[in-house]
């Protein structure tokens, strides 16, 4: 083997990393660009505000899917936020350094790695079948809570842990109970980090498809109650792509999803910048 000079080696390596960087960005820009370029022209107010008609031509818009997605997010968050933040408070503030605590932490980590379709299977067995919720938004939301819980617990716990110890001590020494300290001192300080975690969970709910495909039934009708089935935007993309000839509408729905994710991403970015400004002592 020929020994290359370090300078030449560096040139080759630089070429490779530049190529990797450019290829990665190019692929991703092309994909997003393709979906937006093909999808955006199809989007109109009518598309957004009519429900899918069913059938092979994929007539109609995505209104009922938007409504189902919003319902799902609202219910999921209503359960997930107290549960996730409560668990994070427990782990960060109360949990003793015991084997059991380590077990809980370990299960949170393991849960985060379990594939979404396994959660779907669980949701199907427990919520859809055993609890007789049938294919419904509620069953989907409960499944989604299980799926997203580890992510929220982790990010909320991290946010709580970054609050300086002195603040706790100051509050406690003023005679506050532990809970008062948590509510009035720790939570306000940790709030931006927690909200970033919540917004990321909303993003996860918007993007999720597999576990909802098997727990929500996929009816495109307008949901009328928590117990009616539904089809979220992401699942609708799947149905359009697989079962209809309306690939343009599938791309349009995909474009709506990308825009939503874009907004969610920007808002977390904005939040974390504010958080950094705050942490660096600015008012």
């Amino acid at each position, binding site marked *: 083997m020929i020994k290359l000079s370090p300078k030449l080696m*560096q040139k080759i390596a630089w070429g490779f990393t530049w190529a990797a960087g450019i290829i990665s960005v190019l692929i991703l820009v092309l994909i997003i660009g393709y979906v937006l370029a093909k999808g955006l022209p199809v989007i109109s107010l009518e598309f957004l505000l009519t429900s899918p008609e069913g059938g092979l031509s994929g007539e109609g818009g995505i209104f009922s899917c938007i409504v189902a997605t919003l319902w799902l997010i609202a219910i999921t968050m209503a359960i997930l936020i107290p549960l996730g933040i409560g*668990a994070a408070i427990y782990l960060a503030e109360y949990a003793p350094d015991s084997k059991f605590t380590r077990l809980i932490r370990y299960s949170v980590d393991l849960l985060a790695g379990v594939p979404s379709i396994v959660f779907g299977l669980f949701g199907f067995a427990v919520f859809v079948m055993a609890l007789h919720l049938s294919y419904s938004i509620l069953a989907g939301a409960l499944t989604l809570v299980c799926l997203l819980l580890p992510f929220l617990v982790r990010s909320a716990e991290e946010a709580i842990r970054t609050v300086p110890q002195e603040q706790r001590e100051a509050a406690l020494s003023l005679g506050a109970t*532990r809970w008062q300290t948590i509510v009035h001192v720790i939570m306000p300080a940790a709030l931006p980090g927690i909200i970033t975690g919540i917004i990321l969970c909303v993003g996860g709910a918007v993007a999720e498809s597999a576990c909802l495909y098997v727990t929500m039934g996929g009816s495109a009708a307008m949901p009328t109650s928590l117990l009616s089935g539904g089809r979220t935007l992401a699942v609708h993309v799947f149905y359009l792509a697989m079962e209809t000839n309306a690939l343009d509408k599938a791309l349009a729905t995909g474009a709506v999803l990308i825009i939503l994710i874009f907004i969610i991403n920007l808002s977390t970015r904005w939040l974390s910048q504010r958080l950094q400004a705050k942490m660096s002592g600015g008012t």
Partner: protein
Amino acid sequence: MPRYFVDRLSRHTVSIFGIAAFLILVLIALFILKDSLPALKEVGLIDILFGAKWYPSHGSFGILTMLAGSVVTTLLALAIAVPLALGCAIFLAEVAPPRVRSITRPAVELLVGIPSVVYGLVGMIVLCPFIARLSGTGSGSSVLAAAIVLAIMVLPTITSISEDNLRAVPVHYKEGAFALGATHWQTIYHVLLPAARRGITAAVILGTGRAIGETMAMIMVIGNSPIFPTSIFGPARTLTGNIAVEIASATGIHESALFVTGLVLFILIMLINGIGLIAYRRRV
């Protein structure tokens, strides 16, 4: 008085919430195991795990082909994604001019959140017809299409975590290497990459988990045929796809066999995470 009452009450409430995460994991394992039992009893673990034929209406419940399908597509995807992601991470952390980085970094982060069905959709519309033309036969639904879609999906995840870990290497490591006369690339290759190895391993493990667990995008591009992935231009089926396509209509032993599929997937993920944990703990 009441504030102490509130204090105690809240403490107990959050303790219960904290235990919920643990309970959910136990419940998932229990329910999936419970619903797997009929098939495990009737068909037997060996016949399911090592059976090469899946034809439920004729009583064949072997999932070996799908296990192979999941593993092969994931490995192929990693073979494409890992070099690209590492190159990209080094590029972002060390090489790229700040202006380029300020555009690239948010773009990569944004892509982590894009729904997998969108990648599947583009794969179906653009990639599959292209592969069909390349191979000259079939519809293009193939292992290759699945691997490429997966690679693109996990690329941003591996890139952004690896970059974070490269940046987290203390700056005096780098300064030391430079002081010894190493070139920038030698520093990266001999100092930064080994120092960030644990984090990069974690990133790859995370990417592997995501690839194995991907469902809907796989159904869209892989063809779902329960056969061994012998050709990259031919179809195959993943464990995830097997569950999603059939669970709604399965009954009896067939339904239970799908829960076994889920159980295998669950154990597979635990194994991968376990390997990751060992790799992570080993001293560098």
